[in-house]
């Protein structure tokens, strides 16, 4: 359930409000060429600085995807070194990996504010893209300004600049009754005040076909069948409001904001099995967040800070006293208290969060900059079951505080052709575990205090050999502090693990970018090598029959290469290619119980390790047809095994086969590009696709999207 995503429709009124705000038209900047070019030739000064720095960072401008139906996960999946696995359709759980590290080893930020534990309705696949101007993807080495315990990288979602007037309306409709409505508006007043509102509604029935599902008669497996999902609808909604002043003597930005988000996510079957079918299991998320932001850059000195507080509730419902089959029929179980998943339950898990950050830059001169950053992240978690008295998980609130102090020095020498930076981060974690523990035969409340700290450091170096050739390298000793559930447990079956050590990883990148242009041809070639030496990976280990705890387990080394090539001819034809190969091997010599490790040096199973993308775009201006663009995309993922490759007879091994899917997008823009219509086909050849062993993803789907942009 980690990354499940849910939404609710409760904001129709506000759409009207947003739409009625008066709009001052803004001149279209890089209208057409921007569509393909902006991702390559980054215009803004800050972007340029990031690109030239030693960080292995991808800047993804989302505008070329915004006209068609893509969520942020799908856009990220087009990048080298990034792979997103999902467990189904819209709103299903998904996991993103960057250079082999994934899940909570990657941290997410929204305009620099950490999004961890933000709740299902605010996870990446809920964002339709209008609100997002670009994404910075830091691979393995993360600047201190994004102050968090990111073991394998960070993704920072950046919204449009506040001094623009914008109105962006879009609606899409497609297969499986998928709908998305998105309204983004921003007004920058003459007196430097601004108001921004973004409203998004999302729905899908996700009633796609599943293949090779066990056909069951009287409990016995009698064959396989193709079935249609019938209880997997997902609905979500969010409102994001922000107002304040920008571009004044006092502040570049001083604002307050509110985010309200909710979802409802039906669950068709347990995460790893299709032998059980649900018709009444669902979850709901409700998030209310309040933020305040201050930013000011004086000539020599810059200051940034934010404050975020809020309440996030995830609720899980399992209340039907029925046993369902894939054809929708059901029987009644022996017990009146049985739900579909376990004992009937309505469980609410509430997180109260408080986060703040203050960071300051000091420019010693033109070349040298010092940066100091402090971030604090506190969470209090409490659980409550309305109907199952035996579910006492988190019945006593648990508290956990994390803070990260960072310091960085950056310099530029040799006419700025060499950029060098060093940084250090200090992580501190404190918490109070109050858990009902079974001591002998007494249930007692035990309080455990934890307090530990850890330091990390890193360096970045880039060298611009010529105008067209950039070489960069970076290193970080990165740290991920344990999550609340890992260290605190759930108060019942997951026991506290106060001795848990943070995961650490030594991350190294070496990359080169070469640009070559001649006449009407522009190309860019990128090669990146990466190495991740990861230790103390945290894993859940069953200990006392049904109880267990999180423990530090194995050591993994990942090395890999990403290649990317981009070419554009006559501004009309463009081709994006990228391929990633990563080799993650287990480096443990003994297993968690002290036995010799059977697979030392073997590839980590259940993880894609070769994947590639290609996207060819054609602007039909080449044939004098204005406003029409078509794109063909291919997504390739190589075969991988669910368990260790060398074990077991081949005919019985569980695996995810090699897959290649094709997508087509046709876009048409008119009236000075203010109106855009797109038609998309995903998985054109209707291949059976899986990211996770045994669990189908949707087959062929069609979408149409309308967008008005002003």
């Amino acid at each position, binding site marked *: 359930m980690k990354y499940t995503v849910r939404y609710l429709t409760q904001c129709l009124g506000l759409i009207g409000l947003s739409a009625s705000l008066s709009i001052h038209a803004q001149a279209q900047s890089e209208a057409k060429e921007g569509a393909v070019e902006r991702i390559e030739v980054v215009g803004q000064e800050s972007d340029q600085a990031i690109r030239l720095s030693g960080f292995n960072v991808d800047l993804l401008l989302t505008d070329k995807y915004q006209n068609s139906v893509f969520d942020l996960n799908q856009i990220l999946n087009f990048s080298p070194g990034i792979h997103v696995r999902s467990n189904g359709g819209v709103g299903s759980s998904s996991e993103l990996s960057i250079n082999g590290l994934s899940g909570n080893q990657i941290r997410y930020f929204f305009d620099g504010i950490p999004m961890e534990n933000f709740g299902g309705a605010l996870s990446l696949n809920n964002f339709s893209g209008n609100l997002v101007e670009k994404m910075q993807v830091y691979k393995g080495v993360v600047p201190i300004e994004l102050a968090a315990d990111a073991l394998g990288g960070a993704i920072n979602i950046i919204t449009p600049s506040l001094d623009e007037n914008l109105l962006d309306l879009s609606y899409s409709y497609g297969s499986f009754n998928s709908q998305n409505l998105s309204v983004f508006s921003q007004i920058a007043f003459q007196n430097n005040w601004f108001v921004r509102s973004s409203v998004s509604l999302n729905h899908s029935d996700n009633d796609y076909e599943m293949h090779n599902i066990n056909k069951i008669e009287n409990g*016995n497996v009698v064959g396989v069948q193709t079935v249609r999902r019938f209880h997997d609808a997902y609905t979500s909604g969010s409102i994001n409001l922000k107002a304040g002043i920008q571009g004044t003597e006092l502040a570049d930005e001083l604002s307050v904001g509110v985010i309200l988000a909710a979802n409802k996510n039906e669950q068709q079957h347990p995460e790893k099995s299709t032998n059980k079918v649900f018709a009444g299991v669902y979850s709901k998320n409700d998030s209310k967040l309040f933020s305040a932001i201050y930013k000011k850059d004086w000539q020599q000195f810059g200051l940034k800070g934010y404050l975020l507080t809020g309440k996030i509730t995830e609720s899980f419902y399992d209340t039907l006293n029925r046993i369902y089959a894939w054809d929708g029929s059901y029987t009644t179980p022996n017990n009146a208290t049985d739900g579909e998943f376990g004992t009937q339950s309505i469980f609410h898990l509430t997180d109260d969060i408080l986060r703040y950050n203050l960071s300051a830059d000091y420019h010693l001169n033109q070349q040298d900059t010092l940066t100091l950053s402090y971030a604090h992240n506190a969470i209090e978690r409490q659980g409550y079951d309305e109907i199952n008295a035996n579910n006492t998980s988190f019945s006593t609130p648990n508290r956990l505080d994390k803070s990260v102090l960072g310091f960085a020095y950056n310099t530029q020498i040799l006419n700025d052709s060499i950029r060098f930076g060093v940084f250090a981060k200090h992580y501190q974690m404190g918490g109070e575990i109050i858990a009902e523990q079974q001591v002998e035969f007494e249930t007692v409340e035990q309080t455990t205090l934890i307090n530990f700290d850890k330091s990390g450091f890193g360096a970045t170096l880039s060298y611009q050999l010529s105008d067209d050739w950039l070489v960069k390298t970076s290193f970080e000793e990165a740290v991920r502090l344990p999550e609340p559930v890992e260290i605190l447990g759930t108060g019942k079956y997951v026991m506290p693990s106060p001795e848990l050590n943070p995961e650490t990883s030594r991350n190294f990148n070496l990359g080169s970018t070469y640009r070559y242009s001649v006449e009407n041809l522009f190309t860019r070639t990128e090669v990146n090598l990466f190495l991740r030496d990861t230790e103390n990976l945290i894993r859940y280990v069953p200990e*006392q029959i049904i109880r267990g705890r999180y423990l530090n387990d*194995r050591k993994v080394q990942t090395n890999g290469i990403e290649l990317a090539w981009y070419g554009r001819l006559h501004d009309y034809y463009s081709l994006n290619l990228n391929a990633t190969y990563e080799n993650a091997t287990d480096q443990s010599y003994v297993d968690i119980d002290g*036995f010799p490790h059977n697979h030392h040096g073997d590839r980590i199973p259940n993880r894609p390790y070769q994947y590639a993308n290609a996207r060819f775009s054609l602007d039909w201006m080449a044939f004098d047809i204005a406003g029409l663009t078509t794109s063909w995309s291919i997504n390739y993922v190589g075969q991988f095994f669910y*368990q260790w490759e*060398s*074990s*077991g007879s081949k005919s*019985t091994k569980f695996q995810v086969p090699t897959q290649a899917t094709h997508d087509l997008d046709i876009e048409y823009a008119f009236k000075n590009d203010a109106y855009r219509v797109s038609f998309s086909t995903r998985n054109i050849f209707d291949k059976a696709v899986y990211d996770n062993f045994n669990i189908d993803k949707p087959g062929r789907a069609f979408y149409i999207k309308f967008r008005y942009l002003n």
Partner: protein
Amino acid sequence: MFNRNTLSVAMATLLLSACGSSSDSNDQAKENNEVEMPKFALAYKQAVSGEAEYLLPANDLMQGQINANSVGAEQLGWNYYYPVGNTIFVSGYENFETVSYKLNSDGELARQGAFVFNNALEVFGADGDDYLLASDEPRDGTHTTRTLYTVSAESGHIIRQVGYSIFDEDTGTPGEGTVGWATALVVRGDELFVPFHKLDDQGWYTTPAPDEALVAIYDYPLNDGASPKAIISDDRTSHIGVNGSTTGLILTDSGDMYSFSNGTIAAGFSPASTKPSGILKIANGESDFAQHYFFNIEEATNGGSIFWMDYVGGNKAIARLLVDKKGEAPWSAFGRTNFNQKLVIIDLAAKTVTDVANVPLHAKRYSSPVEVVNGKVYVSIEEETQAYIYEVDIETATATQGAEIQGKTVKGVYYLAD
């Protein structure tokens, strides 16, 4: 998925054969019409993250290494293994499915049949060589009806499924009452014997009143909605069996039944029982504990307690005793911090305990029922950094170290040639 894999591999095999590139010794053997049939199957678990399990074919248990390198039927997650005749049932937690395996004519352990269940099956038994019995347990302590499955060893399919109850003491307030947790399913004639623990009814897995042995008795086969026709109890020792073991009560060739009780916190009792670990008997034809029979193991072994026991023919049982109280902690016998299990042969009639010679102290969590092959049984002995198969001669109570287990454990050794 399974079928998809089977299909694709079958196609790949076809292609390979077509190219004439296959030089597999198996194929050679097939051509010569002398398929080597494995004599044993092993439920093998790896020592590695994920701890994958494989059902391995094996012929020689006495030398070499046991591993799943390119052999064995791959399994999902943690599984129970239970043999019925020459069929092996594999039942796990991940896919809500029990799969049966049999040796096919090519000498491979092939998937035979499968059935699905709603709640994890955690206690097993057999009705002769033809039927598996399997039941769920009250996992979170709520007062619920149990389901008993009768499954054909021939087809791997359910032939009968009934709801039944074992024991419920319900005050309406979780934590005040208890629920029955079965530790064996034993059919004798037209009766089913189900020893059980009384666990707290809030899911903490405590044993509020452990100082009696309890067995529920049913008319067999059970009718839907069955409840015990009698619950027999005996206060000379504690609750019968331990969690996760399916042989808390064993039936001998002569129709007598013997139960073992542990009662220590190391075996999951909390609080510990004040009664000694020991063996009780239900004599052939009787439906109550034999009053004249009690084998006080704690007394006989200088403080030892039985953690596992299984029948090996005649009036003998093989057993593991927890012999060292040092480092004892709740559930510690299921973990791998204490290597304090001693392998013994118990003469149930003569009430003697004989240490099995040449076997080191070890740790062992779960054992599927043993099979006797020519007067010998094969067990997995796990030490701190190594594990071996040992061949135990029942008559002489001596053991010989056999093949090295390159992994965590062998949960069961199944003889396929009888």
